[in-house]
């Protein structure tokens, strides 16, 4: 009786229909909170306290707008971003983008396995155990599972991010002060503050998220009639991403910032939390890092395999077997093997690799965004689903800001 009533309630509110479409946006968004993202937010909180929380509002907005366009392109054209670039811009542009994309993603994948290794070491498990095991799980789930299973698996992982929300509440922040700092931000004009701001934006809006989101929408087979639900998915994903980030900053901002602890990575943050907030807090933080790295270790190889298959016209899809989609699963496998393999090498210069990946992503993002806006406004592809004039003004303005920021980030990181 109660179940019956509940079901009616859900059907009436179309909640079931929405839930069926939810997935790609949430996963893509959360994958933006990867090992590098967690590190950045931890550092932001530790250095600036609540001083940069206001920027998260800006990031939510940017992410929502961009993710929505990706989802819309996937739903309306039934093609991935790689497909559209190849068909509309030809071999040259495609090859340039894919080269940058593969290198950027490879380095980020390495960083994710580094995140897995670091967080597991906080639990006392050596990287020679944790990295091969997690690499195998990542490989096995996608190669053997079907799309539905893989998506559910990744949504469950996405829910583990809420450990950061718990950490944030446990820190017991002065909420009034937090609200005041968000409402009346005291923007400083010094170099450190500005650099942190750009890095935060750069780590949250990344090309692989857009590639993954659009390809996953296509692989899932979301139809045009379901577009309005796919839009929710994109918005929910963007909101959730920044929501989690907010609590990470809150946690380190409340505990580490007043203590004046200097950290350089997410595992530093977890270690620093232990004496100040107790082992439980530290473990939650480490678990969050493990989880974030693990999810991104799925999404990055997948996004690359989708992108390459689309660009060269090979069969792709999580439902496919190795004999049906050899290149797709081949690249997926290769990425995991290389990503995990490099972490096994002793004394790997991780900082340099991270710097390299940040640089390539910085070059790639403006190109991807400009191409995205050209595609989304192409009536022969999008029909009536092209951007409205108001949307175009907003997106172009935002894209110009993002481009300026990434260029500044590139310039400053080369200067320092």
């Amino acid at each position, binding site marked *: 009786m109660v179940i019956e009533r509940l079901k009616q309630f859900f059907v009436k509110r179309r909640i079931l229909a929405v839930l069926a479409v939810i997935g790609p946006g949430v996963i893509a968004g959360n994958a933006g909170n990867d090992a590098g993202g967690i590190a950045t937010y931890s550092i932001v909180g530790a250095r600036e306290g609540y001083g940069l929380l206001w920027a998260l509002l800006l990031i939510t907005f940017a992410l929502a707008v961009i993710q929505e366009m990706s989802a819309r392109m996937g739903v309306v054209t039934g093609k991935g971003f790689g497909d559209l670039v*190849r068909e509309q811009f*030809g071999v040259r542009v495609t090859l340039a983008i894919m080269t940058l994309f593969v290198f950027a993603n490879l380095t980020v994948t390495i960083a994710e396995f580094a995140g897995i290794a670091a967080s597991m070491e906080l639990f006392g498990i050596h990287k020679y155990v944790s990295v091969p095991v997690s690499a195998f799980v990542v490989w096995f789930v996608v190669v053997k599972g079907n799309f539905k299973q893989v998506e559910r698996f990744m949504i469950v992982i996405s829910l583990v991010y809420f450990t950061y929300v718990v950490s944030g509440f446990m820190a017991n922040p002065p909420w009034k002060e937090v609200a005041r700092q968000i409402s009346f931000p005291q923007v400083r004009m010094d170099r450190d503050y500005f650099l942190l701001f750009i890095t935060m934006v750069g780590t949250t809006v990344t090309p692989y998220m857009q590639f993954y989101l659009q390809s996953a929408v296509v692989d899932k087979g979301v139809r045009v009639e379901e577009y309005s639900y796919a839009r929710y998915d994109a918005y929910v994903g963007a909101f959730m991403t920044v929501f989690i980030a907010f609590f990470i900053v809150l946690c380190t901002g409340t505990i580490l910032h007043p203590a004046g602890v200097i950290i350089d990575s997410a595992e530093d943050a977890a270690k620093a939390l232990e004496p100040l907030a107790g082992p439980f807090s530290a473990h939650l933080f480490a678990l969050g890092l493990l989880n974030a790295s693990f999810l991104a270790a799925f999404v990055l190889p997948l996004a690359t395999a989708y992108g390459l298959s689309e660009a060269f*016209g090979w069969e792709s899809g999580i439902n496919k077997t190795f004999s049906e989609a050899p290149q797709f699963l081949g690249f997926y496998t290769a990425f995991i093997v290389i990503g995990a393999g490099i972490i096994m090498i002793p004394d790997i210069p991780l900082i340099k690799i991270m710097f390299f990946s940040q640089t390539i992503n910085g070059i790639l993002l403006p190109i991807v965004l400009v191409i995205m806006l050209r595609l989304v406004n192409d009536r022969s592809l999008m029909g009536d689903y092209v951007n409205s004039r108001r949307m175009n003004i907003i997106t172009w303005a935002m894209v110009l800001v993002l481009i300026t920021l990434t260029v500044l980030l590139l310039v400053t990181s080369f200067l320092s």
Partner: protein
Amino acid sequence: MPFFAGDIFVSEVHRKPVLDRAGEEIGKLTDITVGQGDPFPSVTALVVKSGKLTYLIPWDQINLFNKRVISVNLLRDQLSPAVIEPAEVLICRDILDKQIVDINGAKLVRVNDLKLGDVNGRVSLIAADIGLRGILRRLGVEARGERLLSVLRYRLQNVLIGWHYLQPVEPKLNKLTLTVSRQKAAQLHPADLAEIISEVSQKERSAIFGSLDVETAAEALHELEPSVQADIIDDMSKEKASDILEQMPPDEAADVLGDLPEAKAQELINLMEKDEAEDVQELLEHEEDTAGGLMTTEYLAFPPDMTVEDAIRELRLEAPDVETVYYLYITDDQERLLGVLSLKSLIMARPETLLQDIMRSPMKTLSLDAEQMDVAEFISKYNLLAAPVVDENMVMRGIVTVDDVVDFLLPPASRKKRRKI
């Protein structure tokens, strides 16, 4: 019908300037429209863009269409801007870079380039290039890529799908469907997709030679690299091949046969007429780079007691069959060389004079085993057009003409470049 030379890949002409009859640039070639034509869609017009203006130039107004020049029979002022109908199929816009799927809808690959060729006198879309070579060509680095890969011992081949294995073109094409399934395509796999995807040119050149008459074929063959000559002869029917070989000068024929497997060469010689066969057989026995290998057995030989008048009459009869008529060789009844006579001294002599009275003797000769460089130097030193080759008994065996050795006399850069197809 515009002059259309060989096959052309679309990427080789895309964005090339299109000239009018006066040589003025009309604009750049941006696309090509195709119409019906089963299975090969034929080219109907060129889309030429100049700034914001678009011209549609019907195919029958095209004068030249090749990698270097595209020209039109009209003047620029005669053209008026056109609007492209939605139903038109534009190959760059609608076909290039599109997805190819098998009959079950499984994605295979994308169209990297398109090949145009002649089908029954109409220029048509004949194949989709799906290989790495097509991608390199699109990037404009085909030659460099080929060189680089050849260092790695990888031969860069064209991987093509003949259009007869693809669906007919239609407006608003979203993807191209292969008429076979992926499994079947995979079975036809030896090189890449075997039958479907074939290197067209090898077959085509044999087909071209098959369609020529024997004399033209013999002449055309003469212009090619010996290894290519051998390939072509090898591909032809034996009867046709032996006919062509008969038409060729014996030394050339011997060169071609020398590049063939011995059994095959012997088979062809047996099919040739007896006289020609003997000549070729004899030449084959000599090393290729000696006077014996270079010489031809066709020359003018007359007995010493013939009159000038008779010799001229005889010359008229025999001249068509020999390579050079500038020297007449005087031999005895055992074919021993006695002397030589130039054409000039023959025609200047009185009709009743005997040849032995005006011939030059003794004279310079070459032995059968003289090295080719020595032969070249000999001809150069004595300013000859041809030199006689004799055996140890002074029996005349043939002549080496200047054109057989001119390559060794010139500096390397100006040597005649033989063409490959």
